[in-house]
């Protein structure tokens, strides 16, 4: 999939590019309002990531342009302005999602995956892992045709790890995805571990969970 990143902070743009490349996205970069609009005129993209505060124009105006030249693309607004007003006007203009800086690249990727599923009608088949089938869209985990009950948070945790398989996810990354960014100042506590313990317990009743690894001092990983 083709992604245009319109972000005036070059280092940040490069980091986003580096991350997305690993997940097989093809990225173009634009560091100003003008070059962003130019790129949009020249190419067709699947995703456009727009930073709202550009040196030579308002990101919301880029969005207006883009909706004309790339009507089929999905738009994600990225901003440090977490003002309610900006958020509403961004979504009004047809942005598909909204991310406040600073965000985890993991979070960006999973938002993009969610949009892709919704917008481009990509239906993923249930992912099989070990003896289990995980249907992310329908939020179902089955084993030997039997479904296993998970709480909302537990399923969110499991599916997030699964979507970023073969990657170590830190507790902070998991916490921010599941509990959001509102100020909770002690993610160091072991509630993520408690949830993982519960997940393992429920899964172990049916099969092995060797694929769900604990990486000491770092976090968790699903290896597949």
């Amino acid at each position, binding site marked *: 999939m083709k992604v245009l990143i319109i972000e005036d*902070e070059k*280092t*940040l743009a490069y*980091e*986003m590019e*580096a*991350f997305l490349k*690993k997940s097989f996205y093809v990225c173009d970069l634009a560091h100003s309002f003008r070059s962003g609009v130019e790129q949009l005129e020249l190419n067709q993209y699947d995703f456009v990531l727009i930073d709202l*505060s550009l040196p030579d124009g308002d990101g919301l105006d880029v969005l207006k342009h883009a909706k004309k030249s790339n009507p089929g693309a999905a738009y994600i607004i990225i901003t*440090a*302005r*977490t*003002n*309610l007003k900006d958020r509403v006007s961004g979504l009004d203009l047809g942005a598909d999602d909204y991310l*406040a*800086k*600073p*965000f*985890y*690249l*993991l979070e960006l990727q999973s938002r993009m995956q969610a949009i892709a599923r919704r917008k481009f009608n990509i239906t993923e088949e249930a992912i099989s892992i070990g003896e289990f089938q995980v249907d992310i869209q329908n939020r179902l985990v089955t084993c030997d045709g039997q479904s296993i009950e998970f709480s909302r*948070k537990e399923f969110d945790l499991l599916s997030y790890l699964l979507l970023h398989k073969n*990657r*170590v996810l*830190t507790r*902070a*990354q998991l916490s921010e995805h599941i*509990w959001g*960014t*509102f*100020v*909770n*100042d*002690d*993610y*160091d*506590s*072991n*509630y993520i571990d*408690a*949830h993982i313990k519960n997940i393992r317990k429920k899964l172990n009743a049916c099969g092995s969970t060797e694929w769900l690894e604990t*990486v*000491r*001092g*770092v*976090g968790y990983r699903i290896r597949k």
Partner: protein
Amino acid sequence: MKLSTKLTLFITGSKLVIVLLFVAALPILVKEIASQYTNYTLKQQRSKVLSIVKKNGLDYYLQGEENYGSYTLLKEEFIAFLPVKTGFSLDTIKDAQRLIEGDTLSYRVLSHTFKNKQKTYLLEIGKTTASIHQYNKPLQRFALYVLITLIVMTVLIDLTFIRLILRPLGSIIKTRLVNRVFPFDVEQKRIQTNTTDFKYLDESLLLLMDQINEAFYKEREFTSNASHELMTPISILQNKLENFLAEEGLDANQSVAVVEMMKTVDRLKKITSSLLLISRIENEQYIRKEELRPMELFQEIVDEIRHRLEEKNISISLDISPDALLKDVNRNLLFQLFFNLIHNAIKFNRQDGRIFIKGGRSNDGKYYIHISDTGIGIPKEDLPFIFDRFMKTNLAAQVGYGLGLAIVKSIAIYHRIQITAESEPGKGTTFKLRFN
């Protein structure tokens, strides 16, 4: 004391002093006027007599006699001619005693010598002193009455006028200073007055409000700028570390080091966003137009925080009417407020502790919510400072960044909620919220 009262008192007082002085001086004045007037009358009478003498000769009076004397029926006035030695001269007006028909009476006597046919005569015209001062008393009384009436009238007029003149001051205070909320509405009409001082006051206040508004908007702009300026570098650090952690060939120690760095960046991020949240609340950048049922809110929070309750095996009891409804609030902010309080109630609680949440109406009809825990409590000396930024108490326990309660306080102020804390070390803490 009110300015109008002060002015009235001052005006009345100064008038009273003048009146008292006048009243004190009145007898002397009246006496003086009467005596001056008598002197004048005596002189008039002298001129009249002398002109008659000149015209008709002295014999008109003397009728051949050596001297002449005449007095009124009650001896109040007399007139007399008598010859004196040649060369004797007198021209005075003074009080003297005269004997008339066996009565010795006090008179004001005009004595005047003049020549007639080579002989010198003395003319005396007299008026009893009693008759001179007979009008003194009634005159004084009359003057006093007139004065009192005048004073009362002028004081009443002054009072009305002072009220009228000071009215713009009242409206300046009412419209400009009382119960104002940020940002000020500067597009207001000028106060109607033709008093230059009040115009000046009004203009100065509007100017001041304008300046405050400007500072207010600048701060808001600063908040927004600061958020961008700080969040972008934090973003870069966070994303760089995130990419770094995903690199192949990182050994276990290096991974742990990267995670430690990420934690530090995360901490930086949370402190910055907490400060920004507080300043945004203080700048009133949130809308308070939602309604919410506290019961639903608490259930949502409990759901969200269940894992932490389970971690410490803490039981939570909700004693809130499901019908209770809070109006004109910001749902997200109140969620944050109660989340922080319950979060603290868990964090500082003991294993197998309890949390009580009670909502209801107090006697005066105000809605209240009390959140109590069975935790370690707050030392008495720390209690007044718990809502301060970066204030950390209970240092022995696991602490956060010291901003949780500062956020609670700013949200409470923004919603006009009175919040107080009571605590007993070792027993627990109760936060009491009163909605207005």
